[in-house]
């Protein structure tokens, strides 16, 4: 390890929803999380927890390719929430748990649905796989027939989804929020009030648009797509700050986290853990181990023995 000053007493473990994670890095939903073999590899590469790709009741093929492109400072994606459906994901989650539970790495199952009611149905199905934690993706751009906008755009609707899921199961629930709202703290308060055990924030930003100037058409087959990676980090940090100032439940900070310094930043604004998605593109699957080593280096330099002593210690002059 380059210039490592790490002492063995530095503890980077965290408690999340009743689970003890060996470190605060979580694989973000939609990145590599389709199959148990790859999830197990991510765990072996140092992730403290893994999240599966968001799944729906029925299989979805998603949009035509290109669905995911790297534009330099980040990714842009419009995958169209492709997934093999809950039946297949139940098997994958069970197989993933068999491999990850002995390592002490929790499996977080991400779900989404087209209606509030259907969130209840898919919860019952996915609960059969006994995932350690559930994550409700209310920030996908799908429309509820009655609300004509993503669930996370509305605090009241997000709270209803939260209640619906909690009514079906005792599995701890993270609700994943979108940055594309005027007041994310208000949404966070509503889902916390409705019983969410934690919040994951943020989902991808936008949508954004990238054109190919030769053809004068969008590069993504779908046209627009969610923006992620280093380019959105400042917005993610601000969102996590706003949420942590408003609620007491744990926050899994997501959005552009690429290095140990980014983890420190998220902890300083109050995050409990971080999830890592796009950085897998920039630093490989080994990103989890690399980020943890960098985090420990920072802690050693500033004399921190554990993450609690860093959490929420940002100094803001406002």
């Amino acid at each position, binding site marked *: 390890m380059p210039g490592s000053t790490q002492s063995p007493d530095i503890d980077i473990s965290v408690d999340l929803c009743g689970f003890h994670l060996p470190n605060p890095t979580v694989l973000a939903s939609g990145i590599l999380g389709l199959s148990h073999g790859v999830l197990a590899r991510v765990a072996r590469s140092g992730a403290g927890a893994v999240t599966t790709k968001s799944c729906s009741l029925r299989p979805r093929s998603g949009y035509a390719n*290109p669905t995911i492109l790297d534009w330099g400072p980040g990714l842009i994606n419009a995958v169209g929430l492709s997934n093999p459906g809950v039946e297949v994901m139940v098997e994958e989650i069970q197989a993933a748990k068999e491999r990850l539970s002995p390592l002490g790495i929790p499996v977080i199952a991400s779900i989404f649905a087209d209606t509030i009611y259907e969130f209840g149905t898919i919860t019952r199905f996915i609960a059969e796989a006994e995932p350690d934690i559930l994550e409700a993706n209310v920030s996908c751009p799908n429309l509820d027939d009655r609300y004509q906008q993503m669930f996370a755009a509305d605090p009241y609707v997000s709270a209803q989804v939260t209640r619906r899921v909690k009514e079906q199961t005792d599995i701890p629930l993270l609700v994943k929020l979108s940055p594309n709202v005027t007041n994310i703290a208000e949404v966070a308060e509503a889902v916390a009030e409705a019983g969410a055990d934690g919040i994951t924030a943020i989902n991808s930003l936008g949508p954004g648009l990238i054109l190919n100037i030769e053809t004068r058409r969008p590069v993504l087959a779908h046209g627009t797509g969610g923006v992620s990676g280093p380019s959105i980090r400042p917005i993610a940090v601000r969102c996590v700050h706003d949420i942590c100032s408003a609620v007491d439940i744990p926050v899994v900070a997501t959005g552009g986290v690429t290095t140990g310094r980014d983890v420190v930043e998220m902890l300083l604004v109050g995050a409990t853990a971080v999830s890592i998605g796009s950085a897998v593109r920039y630093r490989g699957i080994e990103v989890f181990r690399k980020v943890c080593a960098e985090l420990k280096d920072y802690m050693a330099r500033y004399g921190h023995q554990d993450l609690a002593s860093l959490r929420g210690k940002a100094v803001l002059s406002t």
Partner: protein
Amino acid sequence: MSLPEVVRIVEVWDETRTIRTFVFDAQVPEAEPGQFVMLWLPEIDEKPFAVAQPDPLMVTVARVGPFSAALHALEVGDRVGWRGPYGVGYRLHEDRSALLVAGGYGVGPLYFLAKRAVERGIPVSVAIGARRALDLLYLERFAELGVDLVVATDDGSAGERGYVTELVAQALVAGAPLAVYACGPELMQVALHRLCREHGVPAQFSLERYMKCGFGICGQCALDDLLVCQDGPVLTGEQLEGVRDFGRWHRSATGRALPIY
């Protein structure tokens, strides 16, 4: 960065009744044999194809469905997007002669490899399998390289009658230090994998799985815990040892596992 670049087709010709080769106004000098590019037809789709020549970029495409049919309908001057190259290609053993084993459009990347091996002074022989004589392609191109060439067809209409793996089995018995490099139908490569293991011959295989990103993010191309787009598409015999998906399962666009026939 990996945004597609739009270029023109500068040459196109038929290889067989269902396979065509395209040359683009694009240079990919850094491409290694076995690596692939994503070809983009705006408004249609974007799919992976092996590099058959890096500069100018050449690919050989079989017509098997909507995307490849749309590509086959294009002519010189038409525009296509590309990005890449991606993945890990073949790694030549300098101290062993090379036996290249191809089926179908697998001749494309192996032609690129043969050229590279000849440049490095590595002795090359090529074994090509096909159903019938009229499904054979690239024979003249290989002949021009001056490499040994053997052919097997199912019906005996060209070369030996039978499977190309039978020709390989004979070559492996001969005993000179060899390394095998394969590209073609997966079940052919499964048979070769077994054969090479039995003879203790190092081997590399180029595999295909459904691809979306092409750079290790989506997980669509998983083969057990391997990502074909990034750990592959060329995987060594050792990497494939005990891999349960090899020869058995691939994934659809949804991610659902489907059996391989």
